[in-house]
């Protein structure tokens, strides 16, 4: 039986209490292939056409050695609203933790084709990332709802059940206190808040710049598409210059294709990840606010007790519980922030290196095209 430093016993029946898992947090910090015991993948999107609606499902495959799972392998099909349900459940049941973001729920019909290959693939990657982030989390990955999501044949039945379960959870889950105002945020959390504000601002700017670049590239592409064929027309007028001019025309055509691929890649791989992180920041700021609420409640109750001037030697249980909540929340949040910072660094490292790579590949394709026509241009008619 574990207890907090001040002697109060910990309510281990509550899944929200994670101080019992503090140890596990430290151990699982370094997840490499050998220590990992849970693998989740999202793939194989399929379109379902029903009378009422058309929608996409994704295959969610799980491989695990964890005792919490009955089988070592699972394969289920889930649709976006199932992922959305999971996220909401996680937010409810683990309010002290940072829950990863989902790709945007609503897409403007007519502007985006919800069933196009590109859109579905972009969404699949985001959903895969979402589950992998949960999998990597030492607390969230043990969440019961997550388990059911990965394993249940009929998720809808469980969803309906869930309403009843929730009411059984008890007070300890309900952190929404409301009405309490925090005097001042502790420095370290204020710093996190400021960081997140600037961070999401900068990401927003980068998003706009990236979009602008894509727009300029597409306008450049329009002109290139007119430019190349003119060389071909000219080639039709000439005799000796016919092949060289055709060569230049074809070359420009190849560059057009390469540019198109670059813009597509940026749209499909770069922008969505940026936007995910902006969503992430927003949800994190909300968690910070919830934390403020919990602290505010605690401080208010403490003050109320102090004002009563009772000579009770012991602090009332509900104030103790508040203190407990605050300390758990702070601990969870700090640990999650550290983890988040590390993942963020790796994610952005990969994202930006990927962006650089795509540009390198674009230039390499163009380079190959132009280098290949040099011999054609230098070719002397006698050698033909």
């Amino acid at each position, binding site marked *: 039986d574990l207890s907090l430093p001040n002697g109060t016993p910990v309510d281990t029946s509550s899944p929200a209490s994670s101080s019992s898992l503090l140890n596990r947090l430290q151990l699982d910090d370094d997840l490499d292939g050998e220590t990992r015991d849970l693998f989740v993948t999202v793939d194989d999107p399929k379109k379902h056409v029903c009378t009422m609606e058309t929608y996409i499902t994704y295959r969610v495959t799980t491989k695990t050695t964890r005792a919490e799972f009955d089988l070592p392998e699972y394969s289920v099909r889930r649709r976006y609203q199932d992922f959305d349900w999971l996220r909401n459940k996680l937010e409810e049941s683990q309010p002290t933790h940072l829950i990863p973001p989902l790709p945007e729920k609503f897409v403007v019909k007519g502007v985006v084709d919800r069933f196009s290959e590109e859109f579905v693939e972009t969404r699949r990657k985001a959903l895969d990332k979402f589950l992998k982030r949960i999998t990597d989390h030492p607390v969230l990955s043990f969440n019961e709802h997550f388990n059911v999501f990965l394993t249940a044949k009929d998720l809808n039945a469980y969803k309906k059940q869930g309403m009843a379960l929730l009411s059984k959870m008890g007070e300890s889950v309900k952190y929404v206190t409301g009405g309490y105002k925090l005097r001042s945020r502790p420095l370290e959390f204020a710093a996190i808040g400021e*960081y997140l504000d*600037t*961070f999401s601002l*900068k990401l927003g*700017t*980068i998003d706009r*710049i990236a979009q*602008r*670049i894509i727009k*300029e*590239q597409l*306008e*450049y592409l*329009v*002109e*290139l598409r*007119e*430019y190349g064929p*003119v*060389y071909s*027309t*000219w080639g039709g*007028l*000439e005799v*000796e*210059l016919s092949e*060289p*001019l055709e060569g*230049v025309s074809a*070359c420009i055509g190849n560059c057009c294709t390469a540019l198109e691929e670059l813009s597509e890649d940026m749209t499909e791989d770069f922008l969505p990840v940026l936007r995910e992180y902006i969503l992430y920041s927003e949800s994190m700021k909300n968690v910070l606010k919830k934390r403020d609420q919990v602290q505010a409640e605690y401080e208010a109750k403490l003050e109320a007790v102090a004002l009563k001037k009772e000579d009770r030697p012991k602090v009332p249980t509900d104030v103790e519980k508040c203190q407990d909540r605050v300390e758990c929340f702070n601990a969870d949040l700090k640990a999650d922030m550290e983890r988040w910072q590390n993942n963020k*660094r790796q994610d*952005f*490292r990969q994202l*930006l*290196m990927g962006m*650089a*790579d795509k*540009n*390198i590949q*674009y*230039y*390499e394709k*163009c*380079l190959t095209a*132009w*280098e290949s*026509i*040099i011999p054609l*241009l*230098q070719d002397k008619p006698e050698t033909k």
Partner: protein
Amino acid sequence: MEDCLAKKMEITVSEAEKRTGRNAMNMQETYTAYLIETRAIESQGEGQCAPMDSLWRRYSEFELLRNYLSVTYPHIVVPPLPEKRADFVWHKLSADNMDPDFVERRRIGLENFLLRVASHPVLCQDKIFYSFLTQEGGWKEMVNETGFQLKADSRLKALNATFRVKNPDKRFTELKHYSDELQSVISHLLRVRARVADRLYGVYKVHGNYGRVFSEWSAIEKEMGDGLQSAGHHMDVYAASIDDILEEEEHYADQLKEYLFYAEALRAVCRKHELMQYDLEMAAQDLTSKKQQCEELATGTVKTFSLKGMTSKLFGQETPEQREAKIKVLEEQIQEGEEQLKSKNLEGRDFVKSAWADIERFKEQKNHDLKEALISYAVMQISMCKKGIQVWTNAKECFSKM
């Protein structure tokens, strides 16, 4: 080619200078003067360099020279001058004639023009051209004294001939179509290229914004900060690199422009042929009609309708003496006409022969030059790609250190 001037003399247009002066209306004007430097090329082995001669000329004098050459050598495809006004500009380029970049490109174009003339087997021997390069004062008067303006064919006359000529040499007709199409396609190419340059400029410059935002972002990061900051610097380098790239591309555009204007020179030779051919056809037609008239008078039969014939029918025929006199005049005219026709024929054939020889020379020059231009364009693109790879590789390395 050993005789051509370019081999014996080094010619450069080395400087351009803004000048103010008074024009023919005694109004103050600003113009640019170009310094032409010439130096005799010594044979190899002799260490000494001949002294450099130089003189200043303005664009209008170049124009006068070219007009003179075009009129005096109508069978030659005369090299064109660089454009008078900036055309096919993309937004960053100035359309201002006084703009230093434009002046610089014009300087190069004028030098190119002089070198082209100096390497032409026929044109390089012209005395007026030589004086243009070497004689500072009185050159304008010298040109005007040649009276070349009188030899120039009127535009109207040429247009008339184009429409009415019956049997031009087929090769010239084809060449005329070719030069029209060449003008059209190169114009189109230059227009689109300018738009392409504009757009490419935009793409590169927007990347500069990454530099600033990465810098701002790096300020709030601990481990990621350095990598972001240095990557941002590379984005700035990338954005700045487009200026030089597009400046170099202007040289390619200038090479294309030269051949755009060359198409006009080709057209001029075709026009001259049409004019001469039309002249010939008219002379032959005139001769035939005179011969016919003569025959009619001699035999008394009227084969063709003529007002004279009608009036003489109405008002009585001429006396035999009158008729004899007429026949004599006609016979003289016919003889003159036949001689003229012979010489015109000869002229025409000579023209066709020498013009075609120069056209063949031009074709080879064009194929060679345009191939070179395309190669240099490809080389520019390759260089641009390599720079792009370099910058992004550097940026990637910075990101990897995040």
